[in-house]
């Protein structure tokens, strides 16, 4: 079981257990299934470009290679940014007290693209935080599931369904003036997810 989400508002600590909220849990899912003429499900596989081999599911391994084609152990790898500067690993925030800032303006949430939603279940919540959430306040903190490079903003809020933590990436949209026009109009691809009308 994962360590809890621990946050502090004005020095008062609150602790929540959590679970991820996703479409499959709420609405179920619609999936594409390929079957043969008897209706038996078939599995996808990869055919090599020379047609010499078929790689079944689970038949691939992923490995980091250097310029000499030698494999590199993941523990040896380091991340760098576009300028080549080393990026430090951010520690997991789970089980560690994270300060809450706010209440923040609700539009602050809209400055981020939500990547993950967690439902929080209170284990020990300060009266002040419980009252503020019940009144509709939104608080900001940081969230990182495990030690990695993905430290992100997270927003704590509540509704009549429960308490939620919304993790997001800044959307980085700019204010536009008349002289700013899009330079590049054309076809753009969007992520295509499984077809699902569960909430429609």
């Amino acid at each position, binding site marked *: 079981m994962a360590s809890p989400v621990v946050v502090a508002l004005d020095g008062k600590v609150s602790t929540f257990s959590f679970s991820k909220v996703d479409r499959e849990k709420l609405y179920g*899912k619609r999936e594409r299934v390929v079957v043969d003429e008897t209706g038996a499900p078939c599995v996808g596989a990869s055919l090599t470009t020379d047609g010499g081999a078929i790689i079944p599911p689970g038949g691939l391994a992923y490995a980091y290679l250097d310029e000499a084609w030698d494999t590199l152990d993941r523990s040896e790898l380091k991340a760098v940014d576009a300028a080549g500067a080393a990026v430090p690993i951010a520690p997991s925030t789970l089980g560690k007290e994270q300060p809450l800032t706010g209440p923040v303006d609700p539009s602050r949430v809209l400055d981020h693209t939500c990547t993950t939603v967690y439902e929080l279940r209170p284990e020990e919540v300060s009266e002040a935080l419980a009252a503020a959430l019940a009144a509709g306040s939104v608080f900001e903190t940081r969230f990182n599931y495990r030690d990695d490079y993905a430290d992100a903003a997270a927003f704590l809020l509540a509704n009549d369904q429960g308490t939620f933590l919304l993790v997001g990436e800044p959307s980085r949209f700019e204010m536009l003036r008349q002289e700013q026009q899009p330079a590049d109009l054309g076809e753009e691809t969007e992520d295509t997810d499984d077809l699902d009308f569960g909430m429609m």
Partner: protein
Amino acid sequence: MARLIPLMDAKKRDAHVAAEWAKKPPALKMVGPSGTPARLERLIRTTDATAYDALLRAHGDDAGVARALIDGDPEIDLHLVGRRLGDAARVYLRPDGAVLSVARVLRVVRGPDGAERSREDFLDVEATLAEESAPMVWTGKLVPIGEAIRKFAFTKQLQLRHVSGLTFQFLYDIAKELHAAKKMVFVGTGPKGQGPLIFTTNGAPYRGFLEGRVDGDAYRLVLHLSNLELKSTGGAS
């Protein structure tokens, strides 16, 4: 890169404007101990001839597979193991491992409990919002921002941008109206705007809300998309 989409305002005027997805942060690169670039490769580990199912078919049962493993290395194709996969074609395998030549594609619907609800032939679902489609409709349903963010997770965002002086004023006015009201407006497709926003064939359907901000002579109009409500999953982990 932006795309053109048709948009209708509160006065039922419509115009084509540019829409641009939120920019992803620059990806990090991985380097080895000496600082040289490391690249992630897909390498062949097993083929359909050396996988467990194939060995079981060839040797009858687990005992037969075990004997074959003691006698030799039937699970390893020394010519292929470790080779880079590169570009590969997609094929489907029947339960007996044979390549499927004529595929039938079904859409299977499962409920939150995983139980199958329906099974039917898969039919393409066309995009509902594209350059040549009917405009995205302003429903007039205004929702306070604080209420919207507590009801929906906005998992995609598009910034709407002007493509001319006229569309600058068009979008600026929409942003100004929403900014003053401190609300978002529900937008959609279909005659009454109740239809989902689908941007590509078989793409995910979304609900859309426009949010506007103005600062002097500058504006920001963002289409926030959601396909996930903030609802309890009842403790499912």
